[in-house]
């Protein structure tokens, strides 16, 4: 039972991670234009929906949603959320390696503080 939940969470989190990377890659792939008003936002969304990477991201997220529902069915929401904190660390690593983002030590420190805060709040 525990192994099953662990595997479910593992695959759910992997899909969620892949989805975010695809989303960001898709958005980065768009020609840089501003979205200052609704008209520009509308055209931005239209281009978003034409991107293949975005659809891969949506597919991965759909897979995540189904698995996550199964996880929620097995465990309490309060238990499922802390497990998600692993995701922050993975996102930072993936942003650095796959998206070549400028991940400075200050950003890593900021993320770790947030994770620590998120763990502390429910304990209080």
């Amino acid at each position, binding site marked *: 039972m525990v192994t099953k939940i662990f595997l479910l969470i593992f695959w759910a989190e992997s899909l969620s991670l892949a989805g975010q990377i695809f989303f960001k890659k898709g958005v980065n792939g768009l020609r840089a234009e501003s979205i200052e008003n609704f008209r520009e936002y509308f055209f931005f*969304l239209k281009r978003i929906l034409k991107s293949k990477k975005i659809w891969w991201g949506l597919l991965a997220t759909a897979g995540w949603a189904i698995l996550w*529902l199964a996880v929620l*069915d097995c465990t309490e929401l309060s238990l499922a959320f802390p497990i998600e904190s692993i995701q922050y660390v993975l996102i930072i690593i993936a942003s650095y390696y796959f998206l070549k983002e400028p991940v400075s030590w200050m950003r890593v420190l900021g993320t770790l503080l947030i*994770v620590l805060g998120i763990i502390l709040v429910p304990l209080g």
Partner: protein
Amino acid sequence: MRKGVLNLKVFSLIFLTDILESCTQLLFKRGALDTGIINVTLSNFPIFVTRLLSSWNLWVGVFFYVLNFFLWMAVLFQVDLSVAYPVGSTSHIIVPLLAVLFVGEKISLLRWSGISLIIVGIYFIQRSTRPQTDS
């Protein structure tokens, strides 16, 4: 507007997506409860999905998800994923606590320290988005 910098506008947008996200999660959870299946196995998985698709909670959740997706794309357009993701996971913790404070209840010291860490963390991440020539 300087691209990549976490300004107040982008921050508010991230804050909003997180609130929407927790609404989505709660609706999904209620959708899962609507199925009446507590232990999902490989054999009852098809029934689980069929019942799920007939749950109103799930569809309202899907609506919230789509709305959230469109806003999240605008966020990712403006800042790095390594900025948006950690910052975008804090409001669902801060807002309920502020609500508690508003009602007049006390917040424990441990919780206050948690909130402080989150705020300092956001500050550090914000600093990491400022142009290098700034200093």
